[in-house]
């Protein structure tokens, strides 16, 4: 039998109908994750056709994007401040009830960011196909699943059929070797990779992150890496499952149990790239040389090591436009630049380990005067864990604003925004113009760099505070 990649194996295991020159493949979807923002029009489509959700048992809904993070708004003592968001939340509740979909509603202890709760519950499993109307669905690829974002029309297709029409993307091996240095995180690694291959370097491809560095990463680190695959333009990012994956999943509420576990694990072990399998393309990354990274421009590929200067590309109009938006000049050092807001959270870096990393720096220190440090756990479960383990106390003692879970300040649509012209050092995934609020200037970093910058009140190298 021909040697196959992890991606080939997951793809062919879900091919209901193979593709032909004239027609795309019909690809089966194991798990459909749903949130309030990209589904209303898909439910309307079902209603217009008089169709049910075909497999509610393979569908899970939560609310994260437009939901507030202030406790009083979440738990109803005051109304949700953003009217349209409140309407969307109510519509999600109505649609879930009408179509019989399990929904983790506003007050549910299991609610959280859609890409945090799938793994947390053990619903995200190796070898699965997982889709969601959200581009950061690539996160779930950390488990060896083929997971990708879809549009609202496709959300409707999956509701109605549990399948999608897809052309098979190409494969790109990202070979990463060498140890990460102290103070360098998975976030720095993926930012360095995006800097290396560019924001469209992965277009048309599914990435497989491979090599000794990847094997040594924990699950939360693997999720951070896969999460930002889309920032390189990739359709998805995958990592082959191994003992790290199985250990993570073993005690999760919706993971298989007993004999079912044994059978599942045996099957999951087959989802690895065969030794002689061919990728369509490959790239090599030297992890040992990666430093804490920070973006300086308006896309995640505009990134430098934290101690470096902003590149100077005089005469490049597009580049100049980005620097003008940021209020920066070519040749300036990033270290020491002023900071107004620091955001720690999102589907990229809102997991318990990210909060622990930040707490390691914030413990016994204070947020610099004039800096607003917002810390938003990725799920209600993470919030409880952070409170039980004393992290929340560390954050509050440092002067941070500690919230309920949600997408929050990653995208300015839920009331958590950065004001025009302000600098936001953020652990999220996109530094696009206006992403965190109209006119907001975003600098993407790791939780360590975010915490260090909050303490210093300016862009800081976390290695000085470790």
């Amino acid at each position, binding site marked *: 039998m021909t040697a196959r990649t992890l991606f080939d194996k997951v793809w062919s295991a879900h091919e209901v109908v193979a593709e032909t020159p004239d027609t795309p493949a019909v690809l089966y979807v194991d798990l459909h994750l749903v949130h309030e923002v990209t589904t209303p029009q898909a439910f309307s489509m079902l209603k217009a056709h008089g169709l049910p959700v075909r497999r509610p048992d393979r569908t899970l809904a939560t609310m994260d994007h437009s939901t507030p993070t202030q406790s009083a708004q979440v738990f109803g003592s005051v109304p949700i401040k953003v009217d349209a968001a409140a309407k969307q939340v109510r519509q999600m509740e109505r649609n879930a009830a009408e179509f019989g979909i399990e929904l983790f509603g506003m007050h549910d202890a299991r609610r959280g960011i859609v890409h945090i709760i799938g793994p947390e519950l053990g619903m995200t499993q190796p070898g699965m196909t997982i889709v969601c109307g959200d581009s950061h669905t690539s996160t779930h690829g950390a488990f060896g699943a083929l997971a990708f974002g879809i549009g609202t029309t496709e959300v409707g297709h999956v509701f109605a*059929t549990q399948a999608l029409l897809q052309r098979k993307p190409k494969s790109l091996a990202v070979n990463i070797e060498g140890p990460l240095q102290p103070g360098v995180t998975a976030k720095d690694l993926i930012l360095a990779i995006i800097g290396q291959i560019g924001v469209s370097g992965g277009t048309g491809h599914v990435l497989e992150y491979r090599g000794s560095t990847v094997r040594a990463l924990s699950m939360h680190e693997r999720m951070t890496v896969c999460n930002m695959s889309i920032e390189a333009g990739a359709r998805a990012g995958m990592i082959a499952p191994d003992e790290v994956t199985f250990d993570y999943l073993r005690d999760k509420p919706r993971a298989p149990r007993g004999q079912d576990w044994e059978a599942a694990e045996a099957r999951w072990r087959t989802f690895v790239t065969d030794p002689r399998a061919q990728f369509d393309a490959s790239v090599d990354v030297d992890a040992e040389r990666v430093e804490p990274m920070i973006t300086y421009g308006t896309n995640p590929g505009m990134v430098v090591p934290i101690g470096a200067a902003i590149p100077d590309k005089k005469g490049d109009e*597009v580049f100049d436009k980005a620097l003008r938006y940021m209020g920066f000049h070519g040749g300036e050092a990033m270290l020491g630049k002023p900071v107004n807001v620091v955001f720690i959270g999102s589907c990229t870096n809102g997991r318990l380990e990210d909060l622990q990393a930040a707490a390691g720096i914030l413990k016994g220190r204070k947020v610099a005067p004039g800096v607003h440090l917002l810390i938003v756990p990725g799920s209600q479960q993470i919030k409880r864990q952070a409170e039980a383990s004393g992290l929340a106390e560390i954050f509050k003692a440092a002067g941070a604003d500690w919230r309920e879970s949600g997408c929050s300040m990653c*995208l300015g649509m839920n009331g958590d925004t950065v004001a025009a012209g302000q600098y936001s050092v953020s652990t999220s995934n996109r530094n696009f113009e206006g992403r965190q609020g109209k006119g907001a200037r975003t600098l993407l970093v790791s939780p360590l760099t975010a915490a260090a910058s909050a303490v210093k009140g300016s862009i800081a190298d976390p290695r000085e505070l470790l």
Partner: protein
Amino acid sequence: MQPLKRITSRTVVIASTDIDTDQIIPARFLTTTTKEGLGQQLFADWRYQEDGTPKREFVLNRPEARGAQILVTGRNFGCGSSREHAPWALLDYGFRAVISTEIADIFCGNALKNGFLPIVVDEETCQWLLHHPGTELDIDLEAMRLALPTGVSISFAIEPFARHCLLNGLDEFGYLRSRLADIERFEAARS
């Protein structure tokens, strides 16, 4: 869906590269629960001042842009968020096609499902179009050719099934539903 065979229109140029879907339609407008009216907010932060009045220098606010149906941009158009609100906003505004050297995967899929043509051309053609705003173009989906007023004709590729659906006014959903028996067999075989 109406069949789509041909688009003949002047072009509007936004030369920026990596135009992400947050620029096409900022997230704060995604709280809508319908598809209609999003054209008002297309490129909102580039198009309007703080007080909501149009920025005169932005191309969509200039008289020569009025009625144009073809957008020409720098490489990697539509990157970022999967929001289908992006093609909805472009269509609601009146655009029918975008031309670039590279168009992001998810945007491409979303666009084709809504009858909005994502057309990828070579660097030379794109540079020419970027430097000649307001060019009258003829896009022939049947022949997969782009005709320039200079007499030059350029071929482009488009996913064959999407093209078939667009030319015949078919909905991809109809085809997918016609494979339900296959989906049921697949499920039965797996369980």
